[in-house]
């Protein structure tokens, strides 16, 4: 253990080190990216350096974690939960960068800045996981979002990309306004933007009962709900994910969501606490609506990217169930879930990339018909991802345990969320309707005559697919190390919450 005093600049720098590594790396990389004219080789070199920056970020995180750094109540949190979520984000960035090399080459996307934007977006996300102050939080959200808006429309020749980028930007700006207004109202009610100070203020009935605080929290939740794509703030998701280049859709579905959930968990456990019935109620309905909407609407989709984006909405719902539990166990479940979800979703997007022959068209499910007969490896990998997202035991690997621990967290909460657990299980059954449909199409439909097999995947994409499949299956067989890390980090980061006073009366 090494407590840091955040008021001393040198120690503040130490606390920020991983963020600084990634952010500084991104800026230097930007200089290098514009140094040379656009070319395939240059874009590739930038991508490799960007991956190096991510690895350096991982090293910095592990170094900080290993030193057992802690800090008192300051603008940023220095604890194990931050490190765990940072690692998940960096993993998502690495996978995105790796698959984008192939993708960009096929799509003739030469601009090297896009790799820089991934790194900058990542530094925003890492700021978000660290934020213990609403201002830092907002800074992180914006840094992340602006980079991602650009990434969505990075393919300038694609009208669908432009539409996607513009939609995301307009609606994102709209929701940021709500977030900012919420922050202002919370500040007005408590006189502070620090989460811990807000949490202390919340324990007085004068604050926790004041309409200003309530409206502030509601608007804060709107901001988060938009970022994690919770219903009814999810409508942008399918259009944006569908129009954006596949690797960046993956980044949005995984890393953006990871960062937003990390911040939401921190706000939930440190600022709001378990004192507010209404906050709990709002979370409850958000979770329920998101699970139902995401999983039910996905059934109709025959466009694989749209299907994956509805799937990501559904998973946001499952994660919100663990948030609703408002316990450290829930936080641990979220950390573990995010790993499984990142591996499976980005893996699935890697398969989408591998399937792409260089066209900017719709990724229709018919292209996957009989994939097993022409590219058995891809079909097997996709099947593992689908089963992992479904939460199937054994062949679905760690996906099963991810859902299992979320369910456990929901049922072990001080007010057991039995009804949410039932909705979770039922909507999971519904989700089999589209996950298994794709598996069925790949394995049981004949390959249509005249449909050319997808081009062979190249090194990095193959590596991403193989690694993620192996990790999913390995953690499925032997989840306890990952579970223990998640549990320990959550327990070390958040003080155990006091049971909510009239807990049982809350659940609708």
């Amino acid at each position, binding site marked *: 253990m090494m407590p840091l005093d955040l008021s001393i600049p040198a120690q503040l720098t130490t606390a920020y080190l991983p963020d600084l590594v990634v952010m500084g790396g991104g800026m230097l990389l930007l200089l290098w990216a514009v140094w040379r004219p656009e070319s395939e080789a240059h874009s590739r070199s930038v991508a490799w350096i960007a991956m190096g920056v991510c690895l350096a970020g991982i090293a910095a995180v592990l170094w900080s974690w290993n030193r057992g750094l802690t800090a008192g109540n300051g603008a940023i949190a220095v604890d194990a939960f931050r490190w765990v979520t940072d690692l998940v984000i960096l993993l998502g960035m690495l996978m995105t960068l790796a698959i984008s090399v192939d993708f960009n080459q096929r799509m003739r996307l030469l601009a090297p800045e896009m790799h820089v934007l991934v790194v900058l977006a990542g530094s925003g996300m890492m700021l978000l996981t660290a934020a213990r102050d609403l201002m830092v939080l907002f800074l992180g959200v914006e840094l992340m979002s602006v980079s991602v808006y650009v990434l969505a429309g990075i393919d300038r020749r694609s009208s669908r990309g432009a539409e996607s980028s*513009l*939609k995301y930007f*307009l*609606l994102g700006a*709209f*929701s940021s306004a*709500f977030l900012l207004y919420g922050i202002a109202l919370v500040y007005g009610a408590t006189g502070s933007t620090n989460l811990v100070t807000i949490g202390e203020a919340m324990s007085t009935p004068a604050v926790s009962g004041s*309409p200003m605080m*309530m*409206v502030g*929290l*509601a*608007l804060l*939740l*709107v901001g988060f*709900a*938009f970022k994690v794509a919770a*219903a*009814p*703030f999810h*409508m*942008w998701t*399918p*259009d944006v994910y569908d129009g954006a280049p596949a690797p960046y859709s993956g980044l949005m579905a995984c890393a953006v969501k990871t960062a937003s959930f990390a911040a939401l968990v921190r706000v939930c456990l440190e600022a709001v606490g378990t004192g507010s019935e*209404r*906050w709990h*109620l*709002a979370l409850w*309905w*958000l979770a329920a609506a998101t699970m139902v*909407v995401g999983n*039910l*609407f*996905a*059934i*109709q989709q025959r466009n694989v990217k749209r299907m994956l984006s509805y799937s990501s909405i559904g998973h946001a719902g499952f994660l919100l169930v663990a948030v609703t539990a408002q316990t450290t166990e829930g936080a641990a479940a979220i950390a573990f879930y995010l790993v499984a979800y990142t591996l499976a979703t980005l893996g699935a997007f890697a398969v989408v990339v591998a399937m792409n022959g260089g066209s900017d068209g719709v990724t229709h499910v018919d292209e996957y018909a009989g994939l097993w007969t022409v590219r058995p490896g891809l079909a097997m990998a996709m099947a593992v991802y689908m089963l992992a997202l479904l939460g199937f035991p054994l062949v679905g690997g760690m996906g099963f345990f991810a859902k299992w621990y979320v369910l456990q967290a929901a049922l072990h909460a001080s007010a057991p969320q039995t009804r949410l657990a039932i909705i979770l299980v039922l909507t999971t059954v*519904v989700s089999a*309707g589209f996950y298994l449909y794709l598996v069925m199409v790949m394995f049981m439909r004949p390959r249509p005559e005249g449909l050319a097999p997808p081009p062979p995947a190249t090194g990095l994409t193959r590596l991403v697919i193989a690694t993620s499949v192996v990790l999913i299956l390995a953690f499925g067989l*032997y989840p*306890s190390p990952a579970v223990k890390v998640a549990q320990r980090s959550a327990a070390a980061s958040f003080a155990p919450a006091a049971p909510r006073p009239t807990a049982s009366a809350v659940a609708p």
Partner: protein
Amino acid sequence: MMDAAHPLAGTAAELVWLVPLLPFLGFVVNGLLSLSSAYLPGPLDPSSDPTAGHSGHTGEFASVQMTHHGHRHRWEPLVTILGPAVVIASFLVSAAIAWAMLRTGADTPFVQTYGTWMPAGNLKVEWAFQVDRLSMVMVLIITGIGSLIHLFSVGYMREDPGYPRFFAYLNLFVVFMLALVLGANYPVIFVGWEGVGLCSYLLIGFWFSDQANADAGKKAFIVNRVGDFGFLIAMFLMWSNVGALDFAGVAAKASQLPAGGAMITAICLFLFLGCAGKSAQMPLYIWLPDAMAGPTPVSALIHAATMVTAGVYLIARSSFLFALAPAASLTVVIVGGITAFFAATIGLKQWDIKKVLAYSTVSQLGYMFVGVGAGAFTAGVFHLVTHAFFKALLFLGAGSVIHAMHEAYHEGHAHHDDAQDMRNMGGLRKAMPFTWAFMWIATLAIAGIPPFSGFFSKDEILGTLFARAHDSPLASATWLGIPGSTILTAIYGLGLVTALLTAIYMTRMMIYTFHGENRSDAKATPHLREAPWIMTGPLAVLAVLSLSGGWLNIPALVAERFPVGTAELLHHWLEPVVGQATAALGGEGHLPASTEEALILVAVGVAIAGIAGAVLFLKPARLTRAAAAPPERGVAWVLANKYFVDEFLNKGLIQPVVRVSRAVLWRGIDVGLIDGLMVNGSATFARGVAWVGSRVQSGLVGNYAWAIVLGVLVLVGMMTIR
């Protein structure tokens, strides 16, 4: 938990993880090598075999080697080295562990834990191996006999296009079998238990493109599910009533249950149901004869020496449970005794050399269960060991015979008759003198002629049974109102009759196969010759073991009279594991020496009578070739058709189940109710909702912004309005 003070700490026993890991590496490499030929046409694919049309030519090798002679797999040299080497290396590690145990005299279990498998509430199952005297005996058998059979397989399977796949499966089998005997708790045993079942299925159906082989594999798998169901129920009951699943925990806590009570009896009976499935006891023995569809080394390793004895091992391992449930122990004795007799009678009239051995295996397993059921755990395990020696020898010898027959048919360009039917053999002694001699050693061993190994083990089972029938806790227990002493005496009588039958059918097999004139095709006869050394070598080693295996546990009586060595080595070795349970079931009583002598004389007399009777009455000259043989009549007809058990099961059980499943479960419930109403109904509903969803998803930013505003209003309302 690793016990620092344990005498085995710091010795080779800490390397126990290496024992299953080495074969596993073999499995991985061989499995990968086999993938390089995965898309070849199936070895027995009729469409790829232009000679498949001719008739009367069944059994293994049937068309394999005909079409693929000389076409060795491209990785054949590597597989030849790797496949056996990993098992031999594993045997060497096991031998080092055994030596460490001998040196330190460790008599308590040495448990090595490698991690937690299932932490769920207060149920905690660990990946743990237990090295103790019982598991080491099994490990040595599995890796030792396994090595010999792997070597034999090199000669036997070399020409097969699925050569790497065969060794991959065989190595994997060894892995799971080792997990089965090394597991320190019931769930780990169950992993091995299911794993060996899987490998058994894969190897029985190794030549899967022949429907009969694939069906035999499925039959074995399905019949075993019945037993596994029993094993699972036993574990559930154990967990809910005893509160532990590791051996130490169960042993410590089981005595809290009322001894002889319904719960402990139920646990033991369900465990025994599992054993009956895996070890082919009545009524679940039906899969084992069909399992002979697999390659002969598989029959030797899995269906004679190791896997099928897992049930015996499990009961010996659970001796502390059976000691508390005399009624369950008596059930084991009864089922074992009846199976032994029943299978022996069927063995009298089989013509397929492997079927004779299959029924003989079922019968000998019955003996082992009689032993462990009567609380003579040492005797049961002893017979397990000697049986592994001589039955592996018999199977490998039979494999060598089949190999020779097949090669002869092939090289002589003769009409291919059934290479496994004894009516087509005869007089092989001249062509295969080594195989002949080795198989006679095994035959004398299984018949129970001293000083061959089988004599000692079988005599110990029968002798203990007789002793228990008179004065023991088991004799005073009752089974469905019948006194235990009556049951034990009756089973002793049945055991003696079975010994007589064993001697008869084994001698019959030897006479028909090796003696008299050769009845093969005239063109094939000159081509009959001894197998290569890689096949006869393992036979020789097994012959030495079959001859001398009895020294492991010489009865005290014999050791007193003759200067042959220390008495009851195995008994003393296993004393710490099963001693308590043996005493609880058998008491301390000993037979007077004169009675014991009389029993031995009777047993030997019966065995000699059986052999003499067979030699006198069976004349190979009277046989005709299988194709020209007249149909059987009377009792012989019933025996040759195995009492029509399969037909009866098919008509009485399988067909009705199939009919009910079709009419009610499939058409009625599945198609009508589940598919029609629930699946399609809910799917239609979900699609309807999804359609609405896709309408709402208009693609217009303005609409989305309105949805957000709506959401904001709802959330703010929820947070503020009371």
